[in-house]
């Protein structure tokens, strides 16, 4: 569904598609030269790695649609979360507070259950429900800038590529995106596919659009 939306995701995907043959050609040419050289110097860079880099970029285009889905992006905001598929301001009004869990009598855990969604009240839940730290602010970022932010240890919770894969695989608040409770759209790409895409992105050097 998201793939059909105009705007943020499509131009990058289109750009990646358009630029791929030219980029792949020039990269492959370079790779051939380097492979020849590496037979003398022992350098490991190869055609395989050039292909991996292109795969990495293509994987990122899909990962970006996940990270910019309301289930992820609604809580990667500056001071107050958004709510619902329509990304409206959270009702009631809530603010970040010093520990990302709200302020004195308005804390995330006042309504959101660690044990999961409350289907009677419609309140979503999950372990340590909170706003993402300010360092992981994704609000308003382009797909390119989001990519640079996600791979930057200063803005991703000091995570390596392997740790990002682990995060996508097991973090309860990430998994919530596929089990959001009634009235909210789950992430449209299956979780196991997103984990695989993350592995491809990391294996290819966490490539970002130019």
């Amino acid at each position, binding site marked *: 569904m998201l793939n059909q939306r105009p705007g943020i995701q499509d131009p990058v995907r289109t750009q990646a598609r358009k630029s791929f043959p030219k980029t792949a050609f020039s990269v492959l040419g370079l790779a051939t030269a380097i492979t020849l050289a590496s037979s003398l110097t022992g350098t490991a860079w190869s055609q395989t790695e050039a292909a991996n880099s292109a795969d990495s970029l293509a994987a990122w285009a899909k990962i970006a649609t996940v990270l910019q889905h309301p289930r992820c992006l609604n809580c990667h905001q500056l001071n107050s979360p958004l709510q619902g598929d329509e990304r409206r301001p959270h*009702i*009631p*009004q*809530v*603010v970040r507070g010093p520990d990302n869990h709200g*302020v*004195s*009598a*308005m*804390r995330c*855990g*006042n*309504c*959101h*259950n*660690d*044990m999961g969604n*409350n*289907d*009677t*009240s*419609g*309140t979503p839940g999950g372990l340590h429900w909170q706003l993402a730290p300010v360092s992981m602010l994704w609000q308003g970022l382009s797909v390119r800038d989001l990519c640079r932010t996600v791979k930057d240890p200063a803005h991703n919770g000091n995570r390596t590529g392997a740790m990002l894969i682990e995060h996508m695989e097991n973090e309860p608040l990430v998994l919530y995106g596929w089990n959001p409770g009634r009235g909210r759209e789950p992430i449209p790409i299956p979780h196991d596919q997103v984990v695989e895409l993350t592995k491809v992105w990391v294996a290819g050097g966490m490539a970002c659009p130019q």
Partner: protein
Amino acid sequence: MITLNINGESHTLDLNREMPLLWAIRDRLNLTGTKFGCGHGMCGACTVHINGEAARSCSIMVGEAAGKKITTIEGVSGNVAEAVTTAWQRLDVVQCGYCQSGQIMSAVALLKSRRKPTDGDIEESMGGNICRCGTYVRIRKAIKTAAQQLA
């Protein structure tokens, strides 16, 4: 079976873990001071305390609250609660009163963590407690009066 500790008393009840805490408080234990408002955690009428923190009992499930210390308007006590209820009475805050047990529970939670709340603190912490009579001006004044008494 689920054991709920409410106002210092232990109650073991046959409940679905996903039942809202408010259902148990009102319908199983007949503690009707806590009110049902919107049922979606958006109005604050059902506010109680869980381990000293404000909680919307329509949204928190009994499985989540089990084993924790739950306090309702009937059981809230201590110097902060006394200061708040005294200020509430002195300033005649209540109009229809339906939201007021939730307002008082949130005000007590606020003053326990912030002894000198600013207007901004009050707005941020009380913003989830809706009053259809519009008693917000008196609520703010009563919180400040209680804060002065506690100083």
